[in-house]
């Protein structure tokens, strides 16, 4: 299949992300605690379905992407033609600009200010929402390393509030393998009450001890790699049989910026297969 005119694909950033979206990350600003201020970028820490399937156009096998679409004009709308609206009545909106949003809490839109530290163990995991990493910008490397190291040694995490696009988040700043992670937390009011259990129900020791015995037999160390490998193995088995039945199809050549496709997935899969075998 021969490519026609190469198509430029616009970058994914939308006005909703606000200003200060740098090429390196989702957000840039300052991380501070007491009188120390560290210039940082916020970047992704998770990417759902990295080993996964891609949506393709059945006609030409070109990859599909999600874009904003105007149903009235039936056109794809580029980021600079998108505005943010709040619906006050059916199909009637008032517009809110990025500058207005930042004015709601100007002290927290460019700064993650750690107001206090807590023992990381005290955080009930139900509060954790979405994780990111912080990376130091130029000049901030040393203070960044110092904060990560001091938090690692003390098992502490920093608490801060900061505004990312339309929301103010309560976040923890944690040290993880020499890096700083930022995890947004749910507010207490967002956590739904659990059903209560009648206190009358007494747990029988015999039953509890029986369960404990079973648990002890099944104790191990947490190894997230293992589960990813198992899933890859299943996918690989099916794909191997598929490859025998059908030749791969080819997508047209597309000029695209910042391609993030899996470079050599089969090699990755093979590598993980090898690891699985070795462990046995």
């Amino acid at each position, binding site marked *: 299949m021969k490519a026609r005119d190469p198509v430029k694909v616009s970058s994914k950033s939308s006005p909703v992300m606000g200003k200060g979206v740098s090429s390196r990350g989702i957000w840039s*600003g*300052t991380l501070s605690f*007491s*009188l120390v*201020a560290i210039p940082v970028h916020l970047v992704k820490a*998770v*990417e759902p379905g990295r080993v996964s399937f891609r*949506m*393709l*156009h*059945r006609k*030409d*096998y070109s990859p*599909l*992407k999600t874009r*904003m679409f105007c*149903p*009235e004009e039936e056109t*794809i*709308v580029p980021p600079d033609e998108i*505005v943010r609206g709040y*619906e006050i009545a059916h199909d009637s*909106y*008032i517009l*809110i600009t990025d*500058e207005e949003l930042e*004015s*709601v*809490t100007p002290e927290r*839109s460019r*700064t993650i200010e750690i107001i*206090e530290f807590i023992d990381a*163990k005290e955080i009930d*995991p139900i509060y954790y929402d979405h994780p990111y*990493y912080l990376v130091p910008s130029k000049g901030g490397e040393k203070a*960044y390393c110092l904060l990560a190291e001091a938090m690692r*040694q003390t098992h502490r995490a920093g*608490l801060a509030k900061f505004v990312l696009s339309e929301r103010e988040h*309560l976040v923890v700043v944690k040290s993880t393998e*020499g*890096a700083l992670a930022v995890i947004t937390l749910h507010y207490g009011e967002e*956590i*739904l009450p*659990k*059903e209560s*259990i009648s206190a009358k129900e007494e747990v029988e020791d015999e039953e*509890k001890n029986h369960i404990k015995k*079973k*648990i002890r*037999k*099944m104790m191990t*160390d947490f190894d*997230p790699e293992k589960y990813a490998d198992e899933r890859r193995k*299943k996918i690989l088995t099916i794909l191997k049989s598929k490859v025998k039945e059908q030749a*791969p199809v080819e*997508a047209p*050549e*597309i000029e695209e910026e910042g391609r993030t496709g899996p*470079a050599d997935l*089969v090699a990755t899969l093979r590598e993980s297969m090898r690891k699985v075998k070795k462990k046995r």
Partner: protein
Amino acid sequence: MEKRAIWKGYINFGNVNVPVNLYAAIKERRIQFHLLHKRDHVRLRQQMVCVFEKKPVPREEQSKGFEVEEGKYIIVDPSEFEQSAFKDNRVIEIHEFIKTEQVDPLFLGRVFHLGPDVNLKGYSALALALKEMDVAGICTWSMRKRHYLGALHASGKMLRLHMLRYADEVIPVKSLDLSEMPLAEKEVKIGIDLINQLTVPFEPQTFENDHQKRLQNLIDKKVHGEKIAILRPKRVKPTAPGKLLWALEASLKKIA
């Protein structure tokens, strides 16, 4: 308030079998915005678009492909994978148990409350056992045609189920290309002292989402045609690398 179960299933390991109901644990309350077309304020919607033709593609023209090398795909039917790989039998199967503290929060996804169904005794015994041993069960289950990995925890007398991300969905720290900086012992020590001084108990209920109220205020003002004062975001001057020790010492003095 009566709550509706999202899903029903059985926790299973060894000969232990506990029927449970799954309930939502989180409800986000947030002011909703919509994306509009600048010209005519028509509300936009998300659409799958062919990168090559730059045209919207209806569902019946969409296929799934597995990329074997750049730009080359094996066309697959996702239902094939579901049938052969995962069975939907309503079982939350626990494969092993781990110490709760071993799970890095980076792996935690959505969370659900689990309520007892029928076998209340077994449910309570399991919750108590998990709590007393401070362990979590690593489990898998299929729900609505999708397969999930999760961690089963105790929370008080109740059970809770956290979805876990697969290892290849968490971006490794190594890929951040962080450079290691030499730190003087004195700097680290002052940093630790400072953190110790600023440490308090974690009391999440004391934090209110006051931003929502202020945002609502701003919207109300705009509805009434009032002008919004634009405030420049506060920017903090980064600490110069040579001034780090000074800033740490000054911070300690300020608190003392």
